[in-house]
């Protein structure tokens, strides 16, 4: 699944580590989600959406 995580992160000038700390996950998790290697679970997707103040479908896009 494609996502806009990298763009949203860049807009806030956050590193992967910054985002990982805010989400309470490892940097590897952020990297894997960002590069499309891993699709997050629904609870984590909701946490990401909440953090960026956007609906899930505005962050995660269908292929």
């Amino acid at each position, binding site marked *: 699944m494609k996502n806009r995580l990298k763009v949203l992160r860049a807009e806030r000038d956050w590193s992967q580590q910054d985002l990982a700390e805010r989400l309470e996950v*490892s940097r*590897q998790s952020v990297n894997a989600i960002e590069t499309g290697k891993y699709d997050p679970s629904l609870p984590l997707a909701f946490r990401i959406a909440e953090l960026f103040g956007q609906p899930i479908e505005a962050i995660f896009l269908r292929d």
Partner: protein
Amino acid sequence: MAGIVDKIAGRRPWMWALAFAGAMGIVAWFEHRHVLGGIRSLPFVAAGCLFLIPLAKSANNCASASGTLTPAMRQYNRRMMIWAVSYIVLLGIAMSIRHNLDPQGPLLWLIAVLPSLPMLFFIWAMVRYLKEETDEYLRLRNTLSALFGLALLLGVGTFWGFLEAFKVVPHVDAWWVVPVWAMGMGLANVFQVMRDRKGNDQ
């Protein structure tokens, strides 16, 4: 003391994993040449297991540096250290009793069971880690590694089993299952860590 071990262990777990795999490979080669075999191999396997102590330390250091040292992983690495030390100690005790007292009956059963207890602890520690890990991606990554180890074990075991049935290769003791599984798991872990380095922004 802990500082010295940390310094020696460094941040290259693959190096210690390679040393461990190399030690197991050497034992297997000597078994193949009939220099070692059965109970005579056990002390050499135990010596090879010493590499697991710096391997666990190094994995800790590496994970700490890359920000993946979750509380569950720290606990798992600690349990791995307990496992490696208890395996070496219990195997040593069992070997000494077997060699010096030549026990029979229930005592022989007891000392034969001793070295397998830490192996059961090892399997329990892996299950505990998967239950305790709250980072879903790391949990998936380590589950995949464990499955790869299992696939390798089933593949090698089946392949070797049939070769053995047709008497073209020598017999291999069943306690090799955990080292083969652990080697497969380690290999899969190294592959996944290297793959994940792509796309890192730091």
